């Protein structure tokens, strides 16, 4: 008998099964990081994707990992920028054009960009964290008139670990202030040195008009959010993307919990005010 059961529209078994997707292009961004453009083999597997969402990418027989969508490619495929840090990401980084991988998704929450039309926009990223934010930059570029001052604050450990540098000039040409910093450099570097939050000092935007989108190492995001709040940015307008271990992506495996939040369903993008306290608790 049906005791309190409700049939949900989507069945988990469907969302559990990776569908075949084809690699349309593979571009090495920096030493250990590759951007894959992928398309579903069967067009019916394509779903609308919003900036900030992620896909579960599967390598046959190896395993599956969550990877944020980092844009749409020239042939309307989805871009994923993958850093080679484990068995699955290593295999992903070694895929070539025409290779087939499995994919499920998209999953998760999106950056609330449209909700902040007319605002100044601060985009702050650390390391690979620029990947989930690149769709935000591109969204703003395409609708430049809908936003006021736009600032990209980006940092990485060292100059050769900076992503998407060839795009920065295009961003600047569209009137976006791009400030880049690294933790360490030699004398050939002519950008800033120091951690990403120090870049806020050089950013030109109206604090009371600004919305901020952050992605990067959790510690960096905490300091960044605090710096923005200290400067007068409205805390509710600061959003960030979090990361935890996840296996199912559909709110059932329980692994990606941070306090009451399931990162796969409620996140990965959260308002700072919703996660500030949770992020401050060690080992939560």
């Amino acid at each position: 008998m049906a005791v309190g059961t409700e049939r949900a529209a989507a069945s988990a078994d469907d969302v559990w099964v990776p569908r075949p997707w084809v690699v349309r292009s593979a571009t090495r961004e920096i030493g250990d990081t590759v951007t894959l453009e992928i398309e579903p083999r069967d067009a019916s597997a394509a779903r609308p994707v919003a900036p900030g969402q992620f896909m579960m990418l599967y390598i046959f027989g190896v395993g599956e990992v969550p990877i944020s969508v980092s844009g749409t490619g020239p042939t309307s495929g989805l871009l994923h920028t993958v850093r080679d840090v484990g068995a699955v990401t290593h295999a992903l980084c070694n895929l070539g054009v025409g290779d087939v991988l499995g994919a499920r998704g998209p999953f998760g929450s999106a950056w609330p960009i449209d909700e902040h039309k007319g605002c100044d926009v601060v985009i702050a990223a650390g390391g690979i964290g620029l990947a989930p934010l690149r769709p935000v930059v591109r969204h703003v570029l395409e609708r430049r008139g809908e936003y006021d001052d736009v600032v990209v604050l980006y940092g990485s450990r060292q100059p050769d670990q900076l992503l998407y540098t060839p795009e920065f000039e295009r961003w600047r040409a569209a009137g976006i202030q791009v400030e880049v910093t690294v933790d360490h450099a030699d004398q050939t570097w002519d950008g800033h040195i120091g951690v990403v939050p120090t870049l806020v000092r050089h950013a030109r935007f109206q604090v009371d008009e600004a919305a901020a989108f952050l992605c990067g190492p959790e510690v960096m995001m905490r300091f960044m959010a605090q710096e923005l709040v200290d400067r007068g940015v409205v805390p509710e307008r600061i959003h960030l993307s979090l990361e935890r271990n996840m296996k199912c992506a559909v709110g059932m495996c329980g692994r990606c919990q941070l306090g009451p939040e399931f990162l796969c369903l409620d996140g990965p993008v959260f308002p700072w005010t919703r996660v500030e306290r949770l992020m401050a608790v060690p080992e939560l």
Partner: protein
Amino acid sequence: MTATSVLAAEHLDRLFQALARREYTCVGPTVRDGAIVYDRIEGAADLPRGFTDTQAPGEYRLERRDDDACFAYVVGPHSWKKYLFPPERRLWRLRRSDGSIERVDADEPPPRYAFIGVRACEIAALLIQDRVFTGGPHSDTYYGRAREDAFVVAVSCTESAPTCFCSSMGTGPAVTGDCDLALTELVGEQHVFLVEAHSPAGRELVDELDLQPAATEQEHAARAAVGAAAQQERALDPEGLPELMGKSLESPRWDEIAERCLACANCTLVCPTCFCSDVEDISDLTGEHAERWRRWDSCFNPGFSYLHGGDVRRATAAKYRQWLTHKLGTWVEQFDTSGCVGCGRCITWCPVGIDITAEVPKLAKGEAS
């Protein structure tokens, strides 16, 4: 008002026969490995007739009764989740073909189960897992089908263990619905089961059994027996627990608990509502086939919170905090219900006898001071 009928104990097999005619796979309590566990059962003879269990923190013993009661025990280490959310289940099988990948297995329909001997607290647990697996934006089809097809024969408790605290949680010991049939066992001069139907399927089955209506004194006796089981020495006040958990995240009590906790994961495995799982991807030697298996996991297990080369929760204190604050706190925000039903399994099966009904007041005290 649900009419109550009487089924004589010697005719209990008629219930099994009626379920067999409906092609249900009966699972229920049986004695195995020194405990009362849930397994396939064919008839009344497989029930733990004449057995009971004695329970205390970190302690479980099977004992003989001086009567033939079939359901005069409390709960064992198993719960019904193992049938609806199996400890391991293959999610899919894929084949490499023509440079692509394709699914080669079909969703296997779960057996049509008849659950025999479901306790009131366990019904509460089923309702909680319904929300977890079928109440969100995505649904676990296997769970949903197994649950929808299951025929639930519930039994009100006439005994409670010192580890029980369902009365305080409002989940038992009386079965009041959310099942097909509700039984209450009476032993004494006559050994009978009072039977109430709580669904159309249940009523149809009761009609088929052709039972006599219960006498008023039998109904009184049943109420008295269940009422006695409601007198429990342990209690947990569910009021304000989410707030308490939220305020206690940095309490020093977690470290004190961690001095005893072995992080063995027993509490999560015996818990009728814990749902965390892992998946494993495997492939055969030819590399042509790959499978994904889902297995029960626990927030206590190493690797559960793995991220970038390390676990987010490394200390046992952090793992225990995750378990308890989820169970009693954040669960409410996620599923609009507590994750605890007061069955006491986590107390009984904890090898060091950690008692959540004792730990919660300590957290509350720490909060107050």
